[in-house]
């Protein structure tokens, strides 16, 4: 793929299509009602390098949640876009994110996954840094310049940008990215909805699911924004729910393009919601608590906001690496691309602070019975990513160039008419791919006239409710740059 192919909004077809020769990777045709993605987008190491450089290098990335490091001195280490980072709370209580490399020779400074410390000491030459990044110990410093500027130049390197929305910590490696709330757009509101579930706040739990899939990261995004796969792929899970007394339906459920590559599915027929929408497998004790919990939410938030938070499940994708599953219970999932055909996945249970132990146990049991590599559903999604990654080799290179495309046309006629896309259509995937192409500079061929109205940036009820979205989005973000 060529650099800087800024032609994605062009209205006339770009030829040649596909391949590594600079052809379009997205082929959108509003006469034939066809949208397809060239399969090299999942396969090509060159495309992958472009993604890391142009997306991961220049976009806000979800790093972690503040509650992972509740106390001064707490730290976690993890990579983002392959860069090793230290995510910590310094002795003054401030969230800090450092490149996890000694400023001396580049050694991995902290080799632990997590812990609590005032100082990070490099084992190699024993340089030590405070948890706010100061160079605190420089062994044999008489042989270095007698100049405070030298020590200052050897401070730990902080990520250029760090901002927090509702406890969700984002970083950017590009100092010139726009403000986090600008990046999040309407997605900020949906994060706020989830953050308001608990009367005493929300928190992550230890017990992080770390696993890796043999598939491109975008397959995991597509899968989360794809209600079409639910019934066939999760046939056995749907059957299990039916036996517990819950009938899954895909009726009257919609997908939303939130702009900026972000997407949202709003689901009312896939599952109950612990504390909010009861279903039989949650048990009788939870049935009574659900009534009390709704009353608590109405008293605290008002009936409209309580209903918006509680009545529907939501799957929120925040471009490029955060999936927030607000379903039976809550899971934060982070995608870390490792190679074109490999993605590391990290998943945290996200729970109400201070809830009773019995509710917590129900929440964990219920959520991990569905999501995660040991659940009754996610393994079939993983099978799908991996089977796609294996299958798209079939048409690669010169074998069958005319068919080296994946189709995402479902629901285009509906979209053209200006109707809200259903969760079982593929509109949320299309909006993701359009933004992706824009970010990586992949050419897009567009034929015919796209719909004039891009659709509502969220359920119409939200917009009708007035200012909820904007006021939520503006208030709770603490800018920590």
């Amino acid at each position: 793929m060529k650099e800087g192919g800024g032609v994605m909004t062009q209205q006339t077809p770009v030829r040649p299509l596909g391949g590594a020769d600079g052809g379009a990777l997205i082929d959108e045709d509003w006469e034939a009602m066809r949208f397809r993605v060239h399969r090299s987008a999942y396969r090509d190491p060159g495309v992958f390098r472009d993604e890391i450089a142009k997306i991961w290098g220049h976009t806000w990335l979800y790093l972690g949640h503040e509650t992972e490091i509740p106390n001064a001195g707490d730290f976690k280490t993890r990579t983002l876009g392959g860069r090793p980072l230290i995510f910590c709370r310094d002795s003054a209580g401030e969230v800090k994110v450092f490149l996890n490399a000694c400023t001396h020779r580049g050694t991995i400074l902290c080799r632990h996954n997590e812990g609590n410390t005032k100082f990070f000491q490099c084992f190699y030459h024993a340089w030590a840094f405070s948890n706010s990044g100061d160079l605190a110990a420089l062994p044999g410093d008489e042989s270095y310049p007698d100049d405070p500027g030298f020590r200052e130049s050897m401070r730990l390197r902080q990520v250029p940008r760090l901002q927090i929305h509702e406890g969700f910590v984002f970083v950017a490696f590009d100092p010139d990215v726009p403000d986090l709330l600008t990046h999040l757009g309407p997605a900020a509101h949906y994060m706020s909805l989830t953050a308001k579930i608990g009367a005493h706040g929300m928190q992550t739990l230890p017990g992080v699911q770390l696993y890796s899939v043999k598939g491109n990261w975008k397959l995991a995004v597509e899968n989360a924004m794809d209600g079409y796969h639910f019934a066939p792929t999760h046939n056995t899970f749907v059957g299990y729910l039916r036996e517990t007394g819950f009938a899954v339906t895909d009726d009257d459920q919609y997908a939303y393009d939130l702009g900026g590559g972000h997407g949202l599915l709003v689901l009312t027929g896939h599952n109950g919601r612990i504390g909010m929408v009861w279903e039989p497998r949650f048990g009788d004790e939870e049935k009574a608590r659900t009534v009390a919990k709704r009353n608590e939410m109405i008293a605290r938030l008002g009936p409209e906001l309580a209903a918006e938070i509680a009545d529907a499940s939501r799957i929120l994708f925040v471009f490029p690496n955060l999936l927030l599953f607000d379903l039976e219970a809550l899971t934060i999932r982070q995608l870390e691309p490792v190679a074109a055909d490999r993605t590391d996945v990290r998943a945290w249970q996200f729970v109400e602070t201070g809830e009773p132990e019995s509710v917590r146990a129900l929440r964990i049991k219920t959520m991990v019975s569905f999501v995660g590599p040991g659940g009754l559903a996610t393994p079939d999604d993983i099978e799908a990513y991996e089977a796609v990654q294996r299958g798209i080799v079939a048409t690669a290179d010169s074998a069958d160039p005319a068919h080296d495309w994946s189709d995402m046309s479902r629901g285009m006629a509906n979209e053209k008419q200006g109707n809200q896309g259903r969760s079982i259509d593929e509109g949320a995937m299309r909006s993701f791919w359009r933004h992706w192409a824009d970010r990586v500079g992949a050419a897009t061929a567009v034929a015919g006239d796209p719909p004039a109205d891009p659709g509502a940036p969220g359920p119409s009820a939200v917009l009708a409710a007035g200012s909820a979205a904007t006021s939520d989005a503006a208030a709770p973000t603490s800018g920590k740059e």
Partner: protein
Amino acid sequence: MSATTSGAVLNVGAREVTRADVEDFLYREAQLLDEWRLDEWFTMFEPDGRMEVPTTDWAGWDATTAGFFVCDDYDLIRARVKRLKSRKAHAENPHSRTHRMVSNVILLEAGAETVWISANFLIHRYRDGGAYPYVGRYEHVLKVDDDGLRFRVRRSIPVMESMDPGARLSFIL
């Protein structure tokens, strides 16, 4: 806790449990799972038995305080068996080939009607041209009665740092 005559025998109430009893139980389980005889495997649980697979960062948390890979009550174990027998359990259709080695069996402690044991496992899983080793240890609470041993709590603790690419837990670990 009852008196212990040696590391190889524990007294549970009036009954004696030997390491060989536990080894036989674990070997039989390994065979049933490798042969996908899941209905028979399910009978190795007592009613209300549980099955857990903690995450790789596990530090002794119970299932009220942390996320897990698997946290099944008896009903969910039954649902898991039913699912895995279905052709629609896509992640296991076709089935993975698995090969289990169980060793280092230790009788840790006896309760009034249970014995707490640990063992090491090495499970090789093969599918779609990939080979996946799963390394860990079992820490089980086994109910002891006249019929022999049954799972009260079956816990498989991975020692890997994470699940490697392709190494999902779509089978019984």
